[in-house]
């Protein structure tokens, strides 16, 4: 459990540093790949809601600290993201082949709306047109392309074996 936590923490820390140092500067067709968000989704799917929430909180704090942004904003958004994806993984998602892609797709869209809302409430908002129409579609595409490779890599790092076949039937024991 502790080793898992260390591995997940290291993954998220490296992803946060790569995101703020390198990927935030990469803008293609108006969008930016969110490697950290994709990594958080993968860790939460693989390790559940508590890992997701705690990992998201600390990854968000790293981002807020490194970018000198308002402390707690990214932490709040990533906490909710990690928890929600973790719950999806714990309930129905973990053994489904499409779970990483589906969760990254949904989270990318919801995260954009939530970030826009929170920043609007804090008086820091970018224009909705720019965030939702110009930046979101290419960012969504980049994140979807990253989803499976990052998920496989996280699964390998966290030493999780290959996904098992889902339970197809239930046998009652008398």
């Amino acid at each position: 459990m502790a080793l898992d936590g260390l591995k997940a923490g290291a993954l998220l820390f490296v992803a946060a540093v790569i995101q703020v140092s390198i990927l935030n500067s990469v803008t293609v067709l108006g969008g930016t790949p969110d490697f950290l968000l994709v990594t958080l989704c993968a860790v939460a799917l693989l390790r559940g809601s508590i890992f997701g929430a705690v990992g998201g909180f600390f990854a968000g704090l790293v981002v807020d600290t490194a970018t000198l942004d308002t402390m707690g904003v990214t932490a709040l958004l990533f906490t909710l993201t990690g928890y929600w994806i973790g719950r999806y993984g714990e309930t129905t998602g973990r053994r489904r082949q499409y779970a990483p892609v589906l969760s990254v797709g949904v989270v990318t869209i919801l995260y954009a709306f939530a970030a826009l809302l929170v920043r609007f409430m804090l008086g820091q908002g970018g224009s909705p047109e720019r965030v939702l129409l110009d930046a979101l579609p290419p960012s969504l595409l980049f994140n979807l392309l990253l989803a499976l490779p990052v998920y496989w890599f996280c699964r390998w790092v966290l030493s999780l074996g290959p996904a098992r076949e889902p339970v197809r039937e239930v046998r009652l024991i008398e």
Partner: protein
Amino acid sequence: MSGRFSGPVKRRIVLGVLVVLSLILITVYFRESGGGALHNIQSAGSTVLRPFEIAATRIAHPFQDLYNYLRGLVNAKSERDRLQAELDRTRKRLIKLQFAAQQNKTLQSSLKYVSGPSFPRDYRPVTTEIISKLPSQFQQRVVIAAGSANGIHEDDPVVTADGLVGKVSKVASHQAQVMLLTDEDTAVSAVDIDTRAEGMVRHGHGPGTTLFLDKVPKSEHVALNNRIVTAGWHQGKLSSIYPKGIPIGIVSSASFPSTDLYASVQITPYVDFSSLDSVVVLVAKKR
């Protein structure tokens, strides 16, 4: 904990604690001053993270160079660069001469005119590299590897050899956040050195780096390819945070709609914001 609480309860407690903690952080950060405890913790944290960010930037640098090179090949990079460099040199020389000539003419025409402090004399440069950037869809800001320890203060102007980049918006001990000219919150008083028309340079709501020169009366005949520089005004003890004469951009479109009081002027900035690697912060010698 697992003994006392069931799985779902434990999950909800963890989530609740983290959300409340985040909200407390946001509230305290907003309510305290720039020198408050949380800002100091953030400053210390950013100092700790700085080596990791610099390492990541340096590791990625060859790949970024390769990417830029391949992108440049498509656009006949070498030829464009040569011509661009030549054009930049000529343009900077021309702007400097024209601005000096205009300033000289104004001084001669009015004996009461008092010139403000000249740009190079009153500032000392702090050259630094860019180590991280905020998500571009929200705010056009970057973080530089120099801070209050280097004498940098909030609102210090930031430039490159090409022209104005923006201003310092937050300062930590060894890092500072720079609000770019393309941020929606940035506004710079500027002047067209060909017509002397004055206005405010802002960024529109759309994507891209095109800027707008606002509040230019239609009587000023701003034309295509006119050069826009910072106005650098002084009024009593107040003065613009930007020294005058820093190149901003070139007029890429000018129209005079009959339904509007002001001309609609678009500017293409001289600075290429997509490939900023390092910047120069102008630190005032006297404050």
